[in-house]
């Protein structure tokens, strides 16, 4: 999953650029605990290292998030996926797609990369079992052509995890 997503193909708008630069500065001053931004010269794609929180199933494990920003960020949500190998988690597919509402329907432009990271870490930390989603194979097969998770219509249903 390293090809640019369709929504990130276009360059960033000026507004998106300004906002991301601001977020980057803020991140450098005050990074969310457990995360490390891998510095590149690409403002439109951030690669972020995630350290599993101590005392959780993912303690001492390190994963990488790839965040691609669309032209009209923050009006549109960024595309956030785990680079392989993705953590074993009931809401994370083996292709790195993450089933988290704020990345899709519940996105708000007042959210930041930092707040997304905190949500993802919270999602990891709350897991009680290391396993793939039940429909993992079918979903991943359907995504073979490199589809962005943002094109998936995520369907919520109650489930006691």
């Amino acid at each position, binding site marked *: 999953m390293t090809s640019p997503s369709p929504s990130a193909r276009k360059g960033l708008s000026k507004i998106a650029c300004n906002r991301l630069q601001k977020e980057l500065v803020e991140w450098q001053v*005050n990074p969310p605990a457990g995360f490390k931004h891998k510095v590149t010269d690409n403002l439109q794609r951030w690669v972020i290292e995630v350290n599993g929180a101590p005392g959780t199933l993912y303690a001492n494990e390190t994963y990488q998030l790839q965040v691609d920003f669309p032209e009209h960020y923050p009006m549109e949500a960024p595309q956030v996926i785990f680079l392989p190998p993705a953590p074993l988690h009931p809401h994370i597919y083996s292709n790195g797609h993450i089933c988290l509402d704020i990345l899709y329907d519940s996105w*708000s432009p007042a*959210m*930041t990369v930092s707040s997304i990271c905190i949500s993802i870490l919270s999602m990891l930390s*709350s897991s009680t079992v290391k396993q793939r989603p039940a429909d993992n194979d079918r*979903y991943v097969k359907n995504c073979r052509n490199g589809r962005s998770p943002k094109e998936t219509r995520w369907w919520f249903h*109650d489930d006691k995890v």
Partner: protein
Amino acid sequence: MAEEEVAAEVEAVEAVYGEDCVVLNPFPPHLKVHIKPRTADVSSQQFVEATIGIQANSKYPDEPPIVTIVDSKGLDEQRQNHLITSIRDRAAELSSCLMLVALCEEAVEKLSSMNHPDGDCPLCLYPLLVEEEGSTSMPFMKLMSCFHCFHCECIIRWYSWLQTRKEVDHDNTAGRHEDEDNKGQCPVCRKVFLPKDIEHVLHLAGTSDFSSVENDVVDEEDILLSNSEKERRQKFEAILKLQQENSGLIEPKRHEVLLPGVYLPRPAPTPAAISDKEAKDQQSENAAENSGTTPGGSSNRPSTSKHRNFPAKKHYRGRGRNPGKNASKWTPKESGAAS
């Protein structure tokens, strides 16, 4: 102390705060008082408010009452803590005196000193108020339902984006229910607001036709080139110029501007206009607060208030607060998953 004396004190609080005071229990006193800053008789100049709960036990006033913030607007966690701490400190100071009125006064005092929008615009992350000499602030506005503040330009851009999106989604060309379809949600707390809540800004900026400019995804360049956008820009710039001299708020219906805690010269409609001394006190206090804020300090980040304010949507997922709770699952919908 005699029960009658305490009862008389409760009556005194009721007399001072009128409808803003709800007595849940006369003895031992349990009150809820809605506190507004002293400078806020004009609602558009009010940026904070709080409802505090004061609950005493039968040993009151030998034991101070328990004070809590039941509800608040415009206060992030840090400012809420500041408020509650100062009230509790006051309670400790006044130990074994009748203190209900004094505690409410302390709350009014603190809220008055904090009656300015706090921190950055949650959309662009740049400060709402620029305090440095020589620099100018962008016009900003406040959503009346929740007191969250945004640069006018930022919230209009986002609102227009939403409207454009809805048009694409629903493809509805006629018979729109204005209020239903044009509802917006505060980007910070998701409280619903109606078009009228921001129409004063739309009007000022001449953007009422903004949302219908494109029927596809809005492209920044196209908008910049379109005539209506040029017109909008010109109007916006005129307003900007007007505001730049004073830096500040664009308010519903009026063209006033505002400095934190200070009324600009205009006929005061109420006797509660702030005195010069108070204004100075507030300014220095504001300055002190601001100098103590590191750039990008966590207290000012929209994420901070968001953590607190997001109402738990049905499929809301915990944000680092309650890991393990609200565990819920999303799966790809069949129709979307099949390619």
